[in-house]
């Protein structure tokens, strides 16, 4: 009960990772996100591009291991889903974490904002040109 970087409460719980209570796979993401299953903003999607904000501001002491790992993973530009795959974390969890970290200014999100409307013809044309170059 004395470790200096071991605050009590939920964050500390999630930190330990070996807590028998959080051993079940479906439960653990729930603990890490402090009980939330949806991101704070609906502007992060699987394809959202993330990069750590520079200059970096230190994460709060309460930040969980997964948040720290995500910021480190995004030291350069990477999509949310790739970060999730490399970190071996569920995409739904990374969406919640990334959303928070964008809100707190630790991560910057670039494009890939899921929209209800279809992309404009100019973007489609650029995609088409790119695909044709693959041939």
């Amino acid at each position: 009960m004395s470790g200096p970087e071991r605050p009590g409460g939920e964050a500390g719980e999630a930190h330990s990772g070996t807590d028998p209570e959080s051993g079940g796979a479906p439960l653990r993401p729930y603990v890490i996100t402090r009980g939330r299953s949806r991101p704070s903003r609906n502007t992060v999607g699987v394809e959202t591009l993330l990069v750590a904000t520079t200059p970096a501001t230190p994460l709060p002491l309460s930040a969980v291991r997964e948040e720290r790992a995500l910021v480190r993973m995004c030291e350069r530009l990477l999509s949310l889903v790739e970060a999730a795959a490399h970190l071996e974390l569920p995409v739904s969890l990374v969406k919640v974490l990334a959303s928070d970290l964008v809100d707190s200014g630790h991560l910057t999100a670039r494009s890939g904002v899921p929209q209800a409307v279809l992309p404009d013809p100019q973007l489609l044309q650029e995609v088409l040109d790119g695909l044709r170059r693959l041939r």
Partner: protein
Amino acid sequence: MVSAGFADRYLPDTVQQAVKIPVVGAFGVGKTTLVGSVSEIEPLRTEEVMTQASVGVDDLAGSSRKTTTTVAMDFGRITLSPRIVLYLFGTPGQRRFWDLWEGLLEGALGVLVVIDTRRLEDSFDVLEQLELRGVPFAVAVNQFPDSEFYGTTELREALDLLEDTPIVMCDARDRGSSADALITLVEHVLAREVVRTPEAAS
């Protein structure tokens, strides 16, 4: 951080826009193969825990047993230009995975449906569901060695496709062939968009 060894996992800093195309199809039709043949990275996997009893019915948690399934999703990446990157998601088509589609269809350019003519009926649900959702899609017919050959007219009829839905023959193992299927899809989406927003076509 040992970033040097992972340097090639990152995108060029010039990339501003990410787009995505789900590659949907029934079990074993060749989705992973197609994604892998055009991807510039070794396809990656993510696992998603799906709870059958939906979120918001927690009060029932005591009485109903929630079933959780782990869905593996694989995806690949193509940097199409210094500005644009495309992600392809191999997405299972079975009904029980439709919840998973939500986050993938939103903002997607369109959907590539892969079918196997040896088990055409496996694809009916997927096609109907996409039509219901109004998502633009193209059908890629993945040819296996023991597949009978069917003409596109025959297939269109058997699959009961809308008149303008493109069908393209494809060898999912071949990069050029898979790229062609994607080109067919994007051409279709572009044609629809130009019709819809004529002022933008200038």
